[in-house]
């Protein structure tokens, strides 16, 4: 794989791309992909032989990738800010006519952040899975899929062109499908897996068309070149600058960006394609943590940041921001009335992804990335915590059957507490800083409405997470009947699981250090790629931060009133009485699944049935068979003409003669 790696500047498709960083055979981003891919293949073919060592094996390989990531990161840091990009052309992939796409990797500041998150959090979750999946009959296969996922995710992250990005994009979708449906015997799981894949396909369909638009308009799929062309297109509007190379007119850039974003709404579960993510919780919990919280679902966010010049070139960003904001609010509402612990987390994820898109939409790319990173920490943490809870409660996910678990399983409880506070935006945990950065970006862009939605969502977020936390971990001990019946003691997370929980909790606490308002490490690091985002100066940031914090605290307070205080139940009842309709609607996911079912699935099925059994079987094939039957029928009729009576034969003969003679006579008469 890396044998084909050449120094940058030598490939056909990126010959005029020069990054500052040189790569050698070992200092090569290709290894990042190679390790987990190798692991996946090995586990695929020899999984049975590797057996229980599969977990360690897979974790180790991803760990190696993390190590490579760190080395590359260090190498990057040793270069100047503008010289930290490496382009790798591994081999020509699809080259026909003027259309040339290679297997190109781009390692820059943006991608290294993602790489570290994917490999780092990924490794932790791998390790967690060693314990979590223990005893599963398809244990090696699970790690095979996880490794494969990592490989595809890294491909997505490192892709130097949109087509390779698409490879990763669909590849992670595939792994998501495989892992959601890992317990395929369950109808729910296999349905959820199929739903995830299909909904994503719809998004990918738009994404693909976006690729076509760019391939035609920009004559290239290379991400840097497209970005350059888009920037040039933007400049040309104001400055009438026409430099060498293609440029993208703003209109086309908008169309392309929106199509790509439509893909992102699928992958990152935004309105209108978010419906698959809650169902995806049917998969094993580490999968939910890794794929459906920390990494895969953030691919859309990453993609928008990656293609930011393109998005900026037109007016696509407005759409991005609004979709993000609305999704954030929408999902938070649904989360507030959900009782399935994992589904709450899923809606929360959707909501938080909405934040990230909001950030992207207001050009706060580094804020988006910042939140992406911190979210990866605390959401993975909470998922793993939820997994630990389920693990000890025989797979139970209904939070109404739980309570007071913090004392029964302290590690889980306290780490979850960290996660809860972090996502609620409580100072000084990671979530506070990243959320604050997003809201600040929105405010600074003058998008006050978006900002308001963001704040409202922050309140709701704090509310539903507190609701979750209070119900599950606080109050009197309550465990599901089955667990009691089995007389099983509620146990805390085993070591392999704790090993993942604790570091994630730590990261959730200190993650904010990445981008503290004073230092802005991450932002400065990313600046060469995504540009500088203007940070409001003066007193404003403090006010904004305080507002967010107050919103968070208010949410917690509300939850406290409703779920911890002894009169909470009564209050809830009265609230329910007054707001019955919206609450029922929210609890029923606003009937969106049903709407899709009625509006798309049912008519689609009807159309398919009509095509297959009416149009095809009766219509088209009916014509075919009808032709045959018609001929046979005529044949059956004509055979009766052959009556067997010789005088009839003579009569037929005579008819023929008379017809022929008549023709002659008629022409004779005409003459």
């Amino acid at each position, binding site marked *: 794989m890396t044998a084909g790696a050449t120094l940058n500047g030598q490939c056909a498709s990126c010959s005029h791309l020069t990054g500052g960083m040189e790569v050698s055979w070992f200092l090569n981003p290709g290894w990042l992909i190679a390790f987990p891919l190798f692991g996946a293949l090995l586990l695929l073919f020899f999984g049975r032989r590797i057996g229980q060592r599969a977990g360690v094996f897979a974790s180790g390989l991803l760990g190696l990738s993390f190590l490579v990531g760190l080395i590359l990161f260090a190498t990057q840091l040793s270069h100047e800010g503008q010289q930290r990009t490496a382009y790798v052309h591994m081999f020509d992939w699809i080259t026909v006519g003027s259309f040339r796409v290679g297997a190109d990797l781009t390692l820059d500041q943006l991608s290294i952040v993602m790489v570290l998150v994917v490999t780092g959090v990924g490794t932790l979750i791998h390790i967690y899975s060693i314990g979590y999946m223990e005893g599963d009959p398809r244990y090696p296969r699970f790690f095979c899929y996880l490794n494969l996922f990592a490989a595809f995710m890294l491909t997505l992250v490192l892709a130097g062109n949109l087509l390779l990005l698409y490879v990763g994009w669909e590849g992670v979708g595939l792994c998501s499908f495989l892992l959601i449906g890992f317990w395929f015997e369950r109808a729910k799981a296999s349905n959820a897996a199929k739903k995830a894949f299909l909904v994503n396909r719809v998004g990918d369909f738009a994404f693909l068309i976006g690729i076509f638009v760019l391939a035609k308009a920009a004559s290239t799929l290379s991400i840097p070149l497209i970005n350059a062309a888009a920037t040039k297109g933007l400049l040309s509007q104001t400055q009438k600058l026409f430099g060498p190379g293609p440029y993208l007119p703003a209109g086309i850039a908008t169309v392309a960006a929106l199509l790509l974003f439509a893909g992102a709404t699928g992958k990152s579960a935004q309105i209108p394609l978010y419906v698959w993510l809650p169902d995806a919780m049917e998969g094993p919990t580490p999968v939910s943590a890794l794929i459906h919280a920390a990494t895969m679902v953030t691919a859309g966010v990453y993609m928008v940041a990656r293609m930011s010049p393109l998005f900026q070139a037109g007016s696509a960003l407005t759409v991005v921001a609004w979709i993000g904001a609305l999704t954030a609010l929408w999902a938070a509402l649904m989360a507030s009335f959900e009782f399935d612990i994992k589904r709450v987390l899923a809606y929360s994820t959707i909501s938080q992804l909405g934040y990230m898109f909001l950030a992207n939409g207001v050009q706060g790319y580094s804020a988006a990335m910042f939140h992406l990173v911190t979210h990866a920490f605390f959401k993975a943490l909470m998922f793993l915590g939820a997994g630990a809870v389920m693990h000890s409660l025989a797979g139970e996910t209904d939070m109404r059957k739980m309570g007071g678990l913090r004392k029964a399983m302290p590690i889980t409880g306290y780490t979850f507490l960290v996660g809860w506070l972090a996502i609620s935006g409580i100072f000084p945990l990671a979530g506070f800083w990243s959320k604050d950065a997003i809201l600040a970006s929105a405010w600074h862009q003058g998008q006050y409405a978006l900002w308001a939605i963001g704040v409202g969502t922050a309140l709701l977020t704090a509310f539903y997470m507190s609701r979750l936390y209070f119900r599950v971990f606080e109050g009197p001990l309550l465990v599901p009947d089955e667990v009691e019946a089995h007389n099983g003691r509620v146990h805390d997370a085993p070591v392999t699981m704790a090993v993942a929980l604790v570091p994630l909790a730590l990261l959730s606490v200190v993650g904010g250090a990445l981008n503290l308002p004073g230092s802005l490490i991450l932002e400065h690091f990313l600046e060469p790629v995504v540009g500088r985002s203007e940070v409001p100066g003066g007193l404003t940031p403090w006010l904004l931060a305080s507002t967010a914090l107050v919103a968070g605290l208010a949410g917690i307070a509300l939850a406290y009133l409703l779920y911890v205080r002894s009169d909470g139940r009564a209050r809830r009842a009265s609230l329910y009485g007054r707001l019955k309709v919206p609450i029922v609607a929210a609890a029923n996911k606003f009937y969106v699944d049903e709407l899709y079912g009625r509006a798309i699935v049912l008519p689609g099925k009807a159309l398919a049935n009509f095509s297959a059994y009416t149009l095809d079987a009766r219509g088209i094939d009916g014509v075919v068979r009808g032709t045959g039957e018609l001929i046979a029928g005529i044949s059956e009729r004509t055979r009766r003409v*052959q009556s067997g009576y010789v005088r009839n034969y003579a009569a037929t003969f005579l008819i023929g003669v008379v017809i022929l003679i008549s023709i002659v006579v008629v022409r004779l008469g005409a003459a």
Partner: protein
Amino acid sequence: MTSVAPGFYLILAGLMFTIGVVGVLVRRNAIVIFMFVELMLNAVNLIFVTFARMHGTVDGQILVFFVLVVAAAEVTVGLAIILMIARRRNSADVDGLHLLKW
């Protein structure tokens, strides 16, 4: 010698030919049918002779001679076939023969 226009002979021949045709179609006795075929041949003979006169040659008359031979040959074989069946089925009705059909 004669002043009757050949056209009349031809019309006679045409009518007789047609009667032959109709006879073949409406009669049921094989021998009778065959006799109507003979009538058709006779009608053609008249045409030959008439055309011979019109052309002023005897070619047409010679053709009649050949028709006679053909008729004779046909009659022998035809009657043999009819006889063969009639003896077996004790009838010369052609409508009774329709084993082969459809």
